[in-house]
């Protein structure tokens, strides 16, 4: 409890703290600001004044050039489709796994958890060749579904781990009550466990989307054709063999970042609402 302090001092202290925190945040976000201001400069401006100067007016040439060069519309659609599908499927798979492992007293539960975490044990480079041959074998090489399946599994390793950890402290009274009422396991999952863990599920959904969106290496291996590429692959266009164009790269960076920021802003609200509305009573 706050001891009696002079109201004015307390008021001032709050604002000082807020300003300090804001300054810190600004520092953290400086790189974004730099990408933004450099993507609307002309090449000559950059060469002359360097990356720290403010642009002399807005020049969208780099942005438009990049968009056309890589057919960014198609790339955006690919990335969105893949990331969204992975986010949904990953959450579902995590939920199924964690439901069994977190709530059920399955024998060797710990070892099964480790089994799932194996997805995170190997660096992606090691999976590249085997997955490449698998994809060719199943005729899904150079198709989005290959990437979707791979990341559904990889992301759900983390999801299973986090969710089962949270479920292990799930109130047993609820489960017992529901089972007494004749609820099946599936019903338990559908009507009790899932809704109550919505905050965590939302967090997982956002994470999975963003992580999948930014994946570079395995999509590079599994999606060679231009028509199937995702945003990070398209960003690589400007890192040519013989040097890169900084304003073009900023432009591509900006276009690469914006969708994710928008997605996060939209879903941040849902997160908040889910968290404040939910919570295990």
């Amino acid at each position: 409890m706050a001891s009696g302090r002079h109201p004015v001092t307390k008021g001032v202290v709050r604002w000082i703290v807020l300003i300090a925190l804001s300054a810190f945040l600004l520092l953290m976000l400086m790189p974004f600001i730099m990408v933004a201001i450099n993507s609307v400069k002309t090449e000559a401006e950059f060469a002359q004044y360097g990356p720290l100067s403010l642009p002399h007016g807005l020049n969208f040439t780099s942005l438009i050039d990049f968009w056309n060069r890589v057919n960014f519309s198609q790339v955006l659609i690919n990335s969105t489709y893949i990331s969204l599908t992975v986010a949904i499927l990953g959450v579902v798979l995590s939920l199924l796994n964690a439901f069994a492992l977190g709530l059920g007293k399955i024998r060797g539960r710990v070892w099964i958890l480790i089994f799932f975490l194996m997805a995170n044990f190997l660096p992606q480079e090691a999976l590249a060749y085997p997955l490449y041959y698998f994809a060719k074998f199943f005729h899904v090489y150079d198709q989005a579904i290959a990437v979707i399946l791979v990341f559904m599994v990889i992301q759900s390793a983390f999801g299973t781990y986090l969710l089962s950890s949270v479920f292990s402290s799930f109130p047993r009274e609820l489960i017992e009550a529901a089972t007494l009422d004749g609820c099946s396991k599936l019903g338990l999952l559908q009507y009790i466990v899932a809704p109550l863990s919505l905050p965590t599920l939302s967090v997982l959904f956002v994470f999975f989307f963003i992580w999948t969106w930014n994946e570079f290496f395995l999509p590079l291996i599994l999606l060679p054709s231009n028509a199937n590429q995702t945003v990070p692959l398209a960003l690589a266009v400007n890192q040519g063999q013989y040097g890169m164009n900084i304003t073009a790269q900023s432009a591509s960076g900006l276009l690469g970042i914006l969708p994710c920021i928008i997605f996060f802003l939209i879903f941040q609200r849902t997160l908040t609402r889910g968290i404040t509305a939910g919570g295990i009573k």
Partner: protein
Amino acid sequence: MKRKTSSIDKGYGIFLIPGIIAFLIIIIFPFMINLGISFTMWRGVRAPVWIGLKNFQTLIQDSVFWLSFKNDLILLVAMTVIPTIVGLVLATFLFDYITNNFGQNVSSFFRAGFYLPQIIPGAVAAIVWEWILQPDWGVVNYVLKGIGLSSWTRDWFGNPSTALLAVMVVLVWVQVGYPVVIFMAALQRIEPELLEAASIDGASWFQKFYYITIHLIRPEILVVILTTSIYTLKIFGQVYVLTRGGPGNATSVPSYYAYKNFFETQQVGYGSAISLAVAAIIIVLTIIFINIQSRQEREESV
């Protein structure tokens, strides 16, 4: 009572089936294949040639590998310890102080802001940080000169003694937001009555923080520590874009070394061996962690 417990606890196995099948195909079989390849010499296209343990013998004596491993351990500090601690403090601070004084929206705003570096594709982050740490016109050195600390300026990425430090700074910047978001979600689970009761009993802020808060969100803390540790041990992308393991091998990490073997020198067998070594270390670490965690959970439920 006992019979009721067991019927409630049975019948969950079926829910594991989709997950197990998917994992077998996507992860386990490739892992097995990787294991097999590590005993061969293979260029990636025609048939592999069996050479037994030779790759591993070479690996044990490979100084570049051990150097990269040492770098990884150093990075562990950057990527695990610092973000977890900073994240915990920031999350609590935002959750308590900011929310109570300025409302939920403001703390959500800050949370989003701190998380933004996680959203940015690694390549873009790397390029921008190269600008910031550029020795001649980068912001850091510019500011240092401006406030009279010119002797502190360095060629951050070019000097072997500071290169790893520079990479660490970038990685911390990227990582901090992740624990903040997880911990803030975790803090939701703490019933406010618990904290109020403790306050009434005369507990200080720190006592409440240490004995109640940290104790209650222990699952999430362990998750964050474990996942960031694993992520660090596997790290590749940022090193690839920032320094390509240089200067010299000052910032080389095992995954990058494996990548070189897979895709630059086409030594798929040796690369597989390196990946396996990293995987083995991670597996051991994970087993230890999970056992600690499940033991704690068992203590809880008693």
